[in-house]
């Protein structure tokens, strides 16, 4: 008897788990043909929180409001999730969103491994993927997809602007501090090619292991090379550590410039102008660029909790705005049923928004807009909060991006 009751209790507890677990994912499925659902999938708790995170979601909401899509009888819902920088977590969420929750669009997605995983899933399910914070050129190269738009930036454009445009400002001799893995090697190789093509010289390079904490010997080697520019072909905490130590060594005060391959304005904010002054970096959007970008920033600023939009956030805004224009053009039901057709319509329409101005989307999914080379201001030059950048060079939309013929995208040949 006792045994039976105990086993009953136990099986009862086990069964009780089932509805509890089943209850969790039910998040009001989208009903009706005119409700669209946008899923913002990014890093909300890790290293990319500031450059994607809740600010991206706020920018997506702003885009929905600015598009005036509600007046056309189409409601748009937003859901968000944290992929914790794990491709499997991101993939599970994306599949669940599409299969169970009726999500039509996935936006943002930093971290190239996760971005490529989402790219595959969205293509398989014929939905829409608007990438903003992922930087890999594979998205418009060999793994390009008719369901994906790669909006904001990629590693090719960063190397071209930082390498090529910088030489034009007179900084023509380079030394690289490179993270010793494929990503770092690629950045170094690409940037070197642009430096040399623009008439500059590469004096040397030093490789450091991933996630180093001590960069002093590398920085000394860089200084001894007497190069005018030290290029940092690394990312994340490696870049931040390297920049901080360079500031302690006074590298920039002696006239050497530090070129950072991948940096967002939010990184400058957390470093502080004292450490970051004199850095050179590339972004395709700056909030204080012109009247339209300032107007956008004023509209969205209140909902960002003190953060300012970087190019990644602006990309979320602009891509969703353009998507909703295409939806309004072709009708909610048609857009919902066929992701590839919606993206094709997006490519057919010219883009125009406050963040990136006028532009277009190429057949391989690449969004084209001008790219800017910025230098971080000295503390005494900065006139207000987030007044961090002065512009050095502009690379036009025609020149900034990898030519479609070099990407090897199978869609283009077809």
């Amino acid at each position: 008897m006792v045994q039976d009751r105990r086993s009953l209790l136990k099986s009862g507890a086990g069964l009780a788990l089932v509805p509890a677990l089943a209850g969790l994912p039910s998040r009001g499925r989208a009903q009706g043909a005119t409700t669209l659902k946008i899923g913002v999938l990014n890093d909300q708790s890790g290293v990319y929180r500031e450059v994607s995170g809740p600010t991206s979601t706020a920018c997506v909401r702003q885009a929905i409001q600015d598009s005036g899509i509600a007046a056309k009888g189409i409601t748009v819902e937003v859901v968000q999730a944290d992929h914790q920088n794990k491709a499997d977590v991101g993939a599970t969420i994306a599949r669940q969103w599409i299969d169970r929750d009726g999500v039509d669009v996935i936006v943002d997605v930093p971290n190239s491994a996760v971005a490529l995983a989402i790219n595959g899933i969205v293509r398989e399910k014929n939905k829409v993927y608007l990438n903003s914070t992922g930087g890999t050129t594979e998205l418009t190269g060999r793994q390009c997809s008719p369901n994906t738009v790669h909006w904001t930036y990629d590693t090719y454009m960063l190397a071209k602007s930082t390498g090529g445009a910088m030489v034009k400002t007179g900084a023509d001799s380079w030394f690289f501090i490179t993270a010793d893995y494929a990503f770092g090697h690629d950045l170094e190789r690409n940037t070197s090619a642009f430096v040399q093509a623009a008439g500059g010289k590469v004096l040397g390079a030093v490789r450091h292991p991933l996630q180093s904490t001590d960069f002093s010997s590398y920085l000394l080697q860089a200084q001894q090379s007497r190069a005018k520019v030290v290029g940092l072909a690394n990312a994340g905490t490696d870049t931040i550590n390297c920049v901080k130590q360079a500031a302690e060594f006074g590298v920039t005060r002696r006239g050497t410039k530090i070129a950072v391959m991948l940096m967002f304005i939010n990184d400058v904010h957390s470093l502080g102008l004292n450490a970051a002054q004199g850095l050179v970096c590339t972004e395709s959007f700056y909030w204080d660029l012109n009247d339209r970008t300032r107007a956008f920033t004023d509209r969205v600023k209140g909902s960002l909790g003190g953060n300012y939009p970087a190019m990644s956030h602006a990309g979320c805004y602009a891509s969703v705005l353009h998507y909703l224009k295409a939806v309004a053009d072709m009708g909610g039901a048609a857009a919902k049923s066929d992701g590839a057709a919606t993206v094709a319509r997006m490519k057919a329409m010219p883009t125009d928004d406050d963040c990136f101005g006028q532009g277009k989307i190429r057949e391989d999914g690449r969004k084209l807009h001008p790219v800017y080379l910025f230098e971080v201001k000295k503390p005494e030059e900065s006139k207000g909060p987030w007044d961090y950048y002065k512009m050095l060079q502009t690379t036009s939309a025609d020149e900034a991006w990898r030519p479609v013929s070099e990407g090897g995208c199978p869609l283009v040949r077809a």
Partner: protein
Amino acid sequence: MAGQATAFTATAQQSPGLPGLAALGFNRAQSIAFLLLLGLLLVGPFVLYPVFLMKLLCFALFACAFNLLIGYVGLLSFGHAMFFGMGGYVTAHAAKVWGLTPELAILAGGAVGAVLGVVAGWIAIRRQGIYFAMITLALAQMIFFVCLQAPFTGGEDGIQSVPRGALLGVFSLAQDMSLYWVVAAVFLAGFLLINRIIHSPFGQVLTAIRENEPRAISLGYRVDDYKLMAFTLSATLAGIAGGTKALVFGIATLTDVYWAMSGEVVLMTLVGGLGTVFGPVLGAAVIVSMQNYLAEFGAWVTVIQGCIFVACVLAFRAGIAGQLGRWLRVRL
């Protein structure tokens, strides 16, 4: 009543299982729990999202493999991510580049786990305790850097769009449900194999080594051989789990070879219950569910996870299954 309960406790250790299941080495409580598990496996995909369940089963098998080593030999490996991750990479590579069928690809993942296990085990079992853990961690970090640099792994992009293929070249696994049954079968096979190992004479020697190694040596057992065999078995099953996961998601990335993955499997086993047959499965369910269902809370994920860990450690020191077993006075 009290007398009855005591009598029950006394017989709980040796109580014969349900007919048929006794052959698998289950006692009565374990037999019931196993039938419950079977039931959940059958009903699960109709209630919960199949991809999520498949992920859970892969991690459950991984945790069970890990538990074989820590729960029954008492060796804390802090490098199991190398078997799990490499299994994933090799399976993904085999399925995508060599075009092998899924079952062969998964076996290839298991084979790599076995080879790595023999090498890592041969080096690591010479030391005990924290030194053993550190050696396995060091070896796992070496494998991580190999995966970061080797051309076939695709660096930080990983191996993407791995085809699920067709089982035995005939049955397509493109549908989530058909793949689910394959994953469930792989999990069950691994789970039962581990259970069989634990209850075999070989497993009894392992337990003897865990309890008192010098005495096992004095009884004439070649302790190192036993440890190496257990390590290799655990690594093989971890490789199979990793390979299955790579097929489920169609990706193999650095996440699975990173040291944090080694930590995660320790957590799953601890939360579920060290040295219990069902504990690792429960632990994997708890951790994977948290990762999945807390994702929408954004930055709160880590905070909530932390609170749950603290609660688990304070309230269930023997893990969920261990504590449950104590309350019910059975061995789970």
